[in-house]
């Protein structure tokens, strides 16, 4: 059992949990969390694809891709959170009067 195998399977399990919860949770904030976990799980595949048994150094291309993926994900999450916030504000206004 090498670390790439162990973490690759763990990453897929994290993806599976996130995927399941993203489709079943009702609260939007929890769905955002679930999707982020999905994305982290998917990133594990790329990190594992880059892994080489030491002393060989890892492949830098997947690393760069995952960094890009992390930034893309935080952008999408920020938009989702802004929408969630605005929806909450409007719903509060509506129920207040």
């Amino acid at each position, binding site marked *: 059992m090498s670390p790439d195998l162990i973490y690759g399977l763990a990453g897929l399990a994290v*993806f599976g949990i996130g*995927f399941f919860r*993203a489709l079943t949770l009702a609260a*939007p904030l929890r*769905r955002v969390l679930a*999707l982020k976990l*999905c*994305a982290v799980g*998917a*990133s594990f*595949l*790329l990190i*594992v*694809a880059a892994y080489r048994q030491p002393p060989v150094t890892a*492949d830098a*291309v*997947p690393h760069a*891709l995952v960094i*890009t*993926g992390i930034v*893309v994900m935080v*952008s*999408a999450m920020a*938009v*989702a959170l802004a*929408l*969630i916030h*605005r*929806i909450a504000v*409007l*719903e509060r206004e*509506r129920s207040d009067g």
Partner: protein
Amino acid sequence: MADLAGIDWAVAAVLLPLIGAMACFAVPRAAATIGLAAVAVTGAAALALGLQVAAEGALTVPLGGWGAPLGIDLRADGLSVVMLVMTAGVGLLVSLSALGERDARRRRYFWPLWLLLLTGLNGVYLSGDLFNLYVMIEVISIAAIGLTVLRGNLAALKAGLEYLFASMVGAILFLLAVGLVYLNYGRLDLSGLAGIAGAGDAVLAAVLALTLVGMALKTALFPLHYWLPAAHAGATAPASALLSALVVKASLYIVLRLFQYLVAPSEVMVTLIGALGATAMLWGGIQALRAPRLKLLVAWSTVAQVGLIFVAFARAGADGTAESWKAAALIMLAHALAKAAMFLAAGRIKDEVGHDEIARLDRSPIRPTLAQFTFALAAISLIGLPPTAGFAGKWMLMEGAIAAGYWHWVVVTLVGTLLSVAVFSRVLAGFLRFDRVRGPLGEHQGWALADAPPLVLALGALGLGLIAVQVLAFLEIGAPLGGTTGVWP
């Protein structure tokens, strides 16, 4: 590739709208002027690229001079150029109709979002790299969600959030596919993958399934269409036009490209795609028949038309996707023009009449005749009557399916066509009935300059049918989808 004063048109087609978006955001007061200019210049770059491709054939731009697989290549062939020019043309006319927006906040944000969307769309059509496609669809999705919620009311925000979630799931599935591809082949350039991907590869099956489901979510193929009607019906008219005409096309395009570069789909997969497309066509038609509001009806018609495009991709011809993709591409073009025209016309009707409840349209004393005429023209193209582009696409689909002996697919398409006739008759009948109007009629014809862009788009859908042969010949430049290497079992 340095050409004409050293300008690389492929790079220009991506960077010009980006620079425009930045300028619009930096100087909000001049956003409309800058935005319109940027869309026009981008369109010029797309045309210049088209001339270059017509003269020299498909071209590749190795960004940074590295070349794939280390660097990223841009690639422009007939299909990419047609998509670029279509996007620019539709985009320019929708931009013109967006000039009439009076709300200050919407004015300020429409232009940067739309230009960022244009950056992403052009980026997808020129991309030659799997991960680059992922980044580009994220540019598209964030800009598209911004446009979806621009109206700012609760319904639009909720629809936008649902759209964002669907879009994020789609992107994550695509990212998984990227991971699997790199794990197996150690490269992401599409042209390189075309050579390696072997027939009967189990990994490739997983990759195709992931990308197909991911893109089906983003393009709203039945049964993953649930987010589309509310999102497209709830946006402002120009935003709806952009979302329905242009945004769904990017993910459809990616599906075409992946089947080109990775492997031709197997018989099972083609049948599945066709079956989903057929269901979408019928379900979208039925829902459009039941829709109480005009914009919702138009949005459901997009679900049906996406289905039609998948049916065409699956079944227009005996040679599989190497032949049928052209019918699909032609229907994509026709739908882009007609749907943009239709959403803009629906927006104009709603503006003039004051509501868009279909059942009450025939009671309105105000008849925005030009917008209604535009709506009817667009409907003719979406139904597929000659000589429209919609007809040309459907004809190719039927001819191919008949030649290949797929009779039941012909029947399905005909049923879908009848449904769309019924759907649009619901609306057109309301335009033509005058006996239920109380009060004087015809005082106000509701013409405005804003009726011009949708009318031009609808006439474009009509005219495109007349030059369909030339468009098809252009699509073949660089032989997209001709060079698939294997067939997945």
